[in-house]
């Protein structure tokens, strides 16, 4: 159960350590109130990953995240894009994880330049799309059809039109900056 809460009231004028919010819920109830003012990882349904400080949330699971970065992983390498303050609509969240710096250092993932990561990501997506296309062609030849459903309420597992849209934007960004 989410409860309405305003992050700004937590430490009264942003000075001093944040006080824990006054939560009046039975123990064992899942909520994000104790995660306020902590660095969290937000994994979205379209596969994107945002990392930032949780500032506010409501009963729908909508969240306000400050100092956000979008982290793009390609294999064990990653790159960051700064996104500032974000409001994430609750329905798009898959998972919220407590950021563990220690665990990250042990994980063996490596930061790379964002341009490099974007290029690598594009390669990967194109490779995936090619595989999918081949599969679809083979299926069609056998009289079967894979339904590529963009309005699905589940996940867009890459290669869908929405994902292609993101890819297009990234490609523009990349072309623009290089």
């Amino acid at each position, binding site marked *: *159960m989410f409860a309405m809460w305003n992050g700004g009231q937590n430490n009264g004028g942003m000075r001093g350590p944040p006080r824990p919010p006054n939560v009046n819920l039975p*123990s*064992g*109830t*899942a*909520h*994000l109130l104790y*995660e306020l003012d902590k660095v969290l*990882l937000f*994994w979205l*349904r379209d*596969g994107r*990953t945002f990392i930032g400080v949780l500032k506010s949330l409501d009963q729908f*699971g909508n969240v306000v995240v400050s100092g956000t970065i979008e*982290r793009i*992983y390609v*294999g*064990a390498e*990653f790159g960051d894009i700064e996104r500032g303050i974000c409001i994430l609509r*609750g*329905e798009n*969240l*898959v*998972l*919220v*994880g*407590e*950021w*563990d*710096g220690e*665990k*990250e250092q042990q*994980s*063996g*993932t490596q930061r790379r330049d964002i341009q490099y990561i974007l290029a690598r990501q594009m390669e990967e997506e194109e490779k995936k799309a090619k595989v999918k296309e081949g599969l679809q062609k083979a299926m069609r030849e056998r009289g079967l059809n894979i339904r590529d459903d963009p309005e699905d309420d*589940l*996940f867009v*597992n890459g290669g869908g039109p929405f994902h292609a849209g993101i890819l297009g934007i990234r490609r523009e960004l990349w072309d623009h900056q290089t």
Partner: protein
Amino acid sequence: MLFYSFFKSLIGKEIVVELKNDMSLLGTLDSVDQYLNMKLLNVEVTDAEKFPHMLAVRNIFIRGSVIRYVHLPADEVDVELLQDASRRDAAQAKASAKVQASQAKSQQQKGGHGGGGGERAVVPAS
């Protein structure tokens, strides 16, 4: 609310949550809410190379709507108890439906005797 209560009884146990994007997470159930959102502690991801961003988190909150399956420890599940609870719910639903039906019937009868007012009042042929 049956499954909410059921999951609450599993708090502290190790479960595997499988998400709709085929990721499986093994962790200790810390808390659960009415939407079956769940918090897991000390999470391990099976097939971790496919999900590199999970390498830097230990405790997570999962939105209930993205869960496909929950694998439970078999000895912690009392099927008899769950079945009984469902039967009780069914019996209760049946009883309340009966009460409602009889109330509706008595109201209808009252309306019929009152006569005249409603458009649907039955007028005996003379």
